């Protein structure tokens, strides 16, 4: 090996690595948010590892909660029995209501549609660089998932949408708190329209494109999806307006606290049926 190369081996390796990464960056820029093949390959290799680790961790947790730590079980059982009782009553009432409007066969078809229109998934990972941007779930294309499907939490609040990469057993979810996310929403009382995007900094969102002349929107108002974007179905609750201020621009600066709770985001539901076919 020439003496120069030997003496400057470290600097040469550093320069080569940086040039390599700048090349990767320059390949990525024209692709926009679409992941490169390399990014997809790393995801496809490591996501199953994360999936398996999550399974292992959950199995350990189950072992602990099922056989060792049983202190709260009785209370939880009672609470769930009460909840089940109320849900059964509610289900019965709703069935009767729907049954009044449709015949039995139509009702059965309708209920079968409800069950097949979503996939329940567990969160197995969060964004490695920015926790407010994305999560990874344990369901993928094998379960009928593809990009641009709306995702809600167990309370029915909007979480985000599926984005690429989606592997056979795992999928990436772009959260509503990501600054590149865009959801068409309207306020529940004043019916003011706007576009919701995350700030990706503190888990908050901003309501964009509401003109400075708009006076009807008030703090505390709830925001719900409109469905105009053809990704998120109409009527999903997203969050509440926390502050409205005027700045020098054409639009108001409106901050929104999303209902999405990072501590409670263990299970989510992906709405798999296309918007027009949802029951």
């Amino acid at each position, binding site marked *: 090996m020439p003496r120069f190369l030997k003496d400057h*081996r*470290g600097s040469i*390796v*550093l320069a080569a*690595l*940086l040039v*390599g*990464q*700048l090349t*990767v*960056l320059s390949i*990525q820029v024209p692709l926009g*948010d679409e*992941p*490169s093949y*390399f*990014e997809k390959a*790393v*995801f496809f290799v*490591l996501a199953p*590892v*994360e999936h398996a*680790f*999550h399974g292992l*961790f959950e199995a350990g947790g189950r072992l602990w909660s099922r056989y060792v730590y049983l202190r709260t079980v009785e209370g939880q059982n009672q609470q769930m029995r009460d909840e089940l009782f109320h849900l059964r009553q509610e289900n019965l009432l709703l069935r009767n209501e729907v049954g009044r409007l449709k015949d039995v066969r139509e009702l059965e078809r309708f209920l079968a549609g409800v069950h097949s229109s979503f996939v329940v998934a567990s*969160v*197995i*990972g*969060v*964004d*490695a*660089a*920015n*926790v*407010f*941007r*994305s999560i*990874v779930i344990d369901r993928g294309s094998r379960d009928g998932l593809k990009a641009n499907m709306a995702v809600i939490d167990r309370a029915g609040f909007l979480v985000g949408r599926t*984005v690429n990469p989606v592997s056979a057993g795992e999928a*990436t979810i*772009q959260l509503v708190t*990501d*600054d*590149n996310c865009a959801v068409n929403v309207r306020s529940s009382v004043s019916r003011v329209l706007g576009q919701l995007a*995350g*700030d*990706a*900094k*503190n*888990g908050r969102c901003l309501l964009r494109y509401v003109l400075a002349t708009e006076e009807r929107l008030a703090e505390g108002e709830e925001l719900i999806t409109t469905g105009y974007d053809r990704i998120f179905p109409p009527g999903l609750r997203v969050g509440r307006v926390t502050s409205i201020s005027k700045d020098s621009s054409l639009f108001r600066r409106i901050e929104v606290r999303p209902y999405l709770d*990072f*501590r409670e985001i263990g299970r989510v539901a992906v709405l798999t049926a296309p918007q027009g076919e949802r029951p």
Partner: protein
Amino acid sequence: MKPSWLRDVIHGGLVLLAAFLVHAALRWISVPFQIAIDVYAVAVIIFALVKGEIAGAVMGTAAGLVVDSFSLGVFGLAGIAATVTGYLTGYISRKINVVSPGRMFVFSGLMGLLDFALWVLLTSVFFGRGIPWGGGAALARPAATAVAVTLLYAAYRKIKARRHG
């Protein structure tokens, strides 16, 4: 006997896998905790301290690419910051004495700060993307990195000393 570069690759792969799994496990604790502790920076700094600047730079590249593959951010940004951090950690630690816990704490804290500052600069200034401050939890990152590196490096030295009698 395996060649030393192959041994380094295997060790690096295992350290990276451990960082990946620890990061996944942190989700169960809390979000601010996950923001405050940059597990990948800890892995890169530790590896650079033990193996030197070239291995540190390569580890930084690999760790950055894993981070970017599991993020919707710009692919390649975390890698650049971690590569520079890994290289400088290995290089500077050969030039000055950072073995004592006090010095190691300050040094690894500075390296953690460098990694964070580079990433913020690249992500926010050049690409205009948001930084997850997490209500200020992110500012604790260099200190958390320093604590983790100091403890892990002390444990590594103890194990190494015991092995060599």
